């Protein structure tokens, strides 16, 4: 390397032979080229394979070259670097593809008509129809679930943080953790077993109950975290003024943490809005507009996607994608707004 001439006679311990800065790019370009070559020569039609071959070539190539020039330790470092990059790019491909496909195929039939009409008189094989009934069902089911889960979750968190000591609090904490891990279909089966007891037919509110079971632990967890962030001085200051504890909690503790609690609830809503399994068991799905969540089968957005996909007809696929785009947009907006609130309300001392 050119540096060798600058250094004086003594062998330097500070400079090792280094590959030039552009070498990773060169190796990457080389591997991609060779991979394309191999792909064409062997007639591999799947781009996934081309990518895998290029990735492997890159990792081994950079190790071999670096080991020759820079030594084993540097070579290992470079392999780690390239593996990490390859892993990242490998993971980006499906995730980007997911988002891209949903948008590209979703916009095809997504318009105002689609959002404001139901599937009432449309056969799966026909184009047309919409998701109005599904949006309505989703909003009602998720809304009712939130009305149940949010107060229970917040109150439980208040109990755990402000009052809870001893055995009861410990077991509540434990079972909140257990509830976090319940698969959504099991929550659905639980409500189903109740419905079987009382010989009931599917209706929207049953789905809400299952969704609420899934939502409560999420709300408890996030609210707990937020309440723990409220400094004790605030509580003490209020108690020292002779304010009763419950008013201290309502007027001092909750207002201080309301931003974070809202964020937690919104994230929980975003999570349950995409749940399909319990809705499938309990609400059953319907092609018609049913505004009454307490009687009769209802549609729901995620379930609509599943059923449209299941029908196996091309126009139905288009509708499934458009509904997916709607659902993703709803979930993402909720997420972004929630995170926005969290950032906006975050204590300035935070990281």
């Amino acid at each position, binding site marked *: 390397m050119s540096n060798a001439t600058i250094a*004086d006679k003594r062998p*330097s311990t500070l*400079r090792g032979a280094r590959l030039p800065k552009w070498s990773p790019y060169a190796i990457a370009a080389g591997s991609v080229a060779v991979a394309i070559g191999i792909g064409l020569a062997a007639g591999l039609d799947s781009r996934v394979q081309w990518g895998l071959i290029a990735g492997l070539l890159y990792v081994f190539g950079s190790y071999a070259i670096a080991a020759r020039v820079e030594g084993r*330790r540097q070579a290992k470092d470079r392999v780690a670097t390239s593996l990490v990059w390859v892993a990242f790019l490998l993971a980006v491909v499906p995730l980007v593809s997911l988002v891209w496909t949903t948008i590209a195929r979703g916009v095809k039939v997504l318009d105002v008509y689609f959002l404001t009409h139901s599937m009432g008189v449309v056969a799966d094989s026909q184009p047309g129809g919409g998701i109005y009934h599904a949006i309505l069902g989703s909003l009602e089911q998720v809304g009712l679930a939130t009305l149940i889960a949010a107060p229970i979750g917040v109150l439980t968190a208040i109990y755990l943080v402000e009052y809870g000591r001893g055995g009861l609090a410990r077991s509540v904490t434990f079972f909140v953790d257990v509830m976090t891990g319940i698969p959504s279909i099991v929550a659905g089966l639980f409500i189903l077993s109740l419905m079987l007891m009382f010989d009931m037919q599917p209706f929207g509110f049953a789905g809400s109950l299952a969704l609420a079971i899934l939502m409560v632990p999420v709300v408890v967890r996030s609210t707990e975290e937020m309440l723990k962030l409220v400094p004790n001085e605030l509580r003490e200051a209020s108690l020292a003024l002779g304010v009763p504890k419950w008013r201290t909690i309502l007027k001092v503790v909750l207002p201080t943490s309301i931003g974070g609690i809202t964020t937690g609830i919104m994230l929980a809503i975003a999570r349950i809005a995409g749940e399909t399994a319990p809705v499938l068991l309990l609400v059953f799905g319907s092609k018609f507009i049913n505004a009454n969540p307490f009687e009769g089968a209802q549609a729901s957005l995620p379930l609509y996607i599943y059923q449209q996909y299941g029908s196996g007809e091309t126009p139905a696929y288009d509708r499934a994608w458009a509904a997916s785009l709607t659902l993703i947009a709803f979930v993402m907006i909720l997420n972004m707004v929630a995170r926005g609130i969290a950032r906006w309300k975050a204590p300035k001392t935070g990281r």
Partner: protein
Amino acid sequence: MAKRIDVSGLTAYYGSHKAIEDISMTVEPRSVTAFIGPSGCGKSTFLRTLNRMHEVTSGGRVEGKVLLDDEDLYGPGIDPVSVRREVGMVFQRPNPFPTMSIFDNVAAGLRLNGSYKKSELQDVVEKSLKGANLWNEVKDRLNKPGSGLSGGQQQRLCIARAIAVEPKVLLMDEPCSALDPISTLAIEDLIGELKERFTIVIVTHNMQQAARVSDRTAFFNLAAVGQPGKLIEIDDTERIFSNPSVQATEDYISGRFG
């Protein structure tokens, strides 16, 4: 094997903020040089430029030259990893690897550089722990986690870890500020012994400590908060503490200044 450090025109930045400006000094081999000065004057930053640790923090960059026996640490083709092997560092808070045993902590640096035989490793570990005056306290529990030691012992463990790889220079960033007086004394004694073998640079807030351990002392100051720190003067420790040539130094040492 100890090496001389020659710094000329060194300026260091955090992003667009200039932390220290235009520092030049020479550190003699086998001596202890202390950096003193008020908080925020950039003495720790300067210390970290001497083994290229400054650039690890986000936005950290450096202009100027640091010669280690005539070789510029910031020259082209220099590998920062090799620099840090030559210029070891001990930090403000003792930081033994929490998941490693005492033995593994000391051996950590050696293991990086290829395979040693078990017996070789044992020799070096024993030698380093003896060098750090820690051997007698830990020889029966080398396989216990390093985090179980007291603060002062942990710091000496970190010194043992640093000297195990036989660096040429040892940088110490307020090594005693988290320790009690007795542990501090043990470390100061140790510094006196280590200077026989290494070039030592120590940052300290404690002026008595600087007076006790160092041969030369450098005083850093900054004009105002937000301004870059500058080297005010460097001289024999005795002179700095008895008859400094700059008024600001005297003010600081006699306590007439922040």
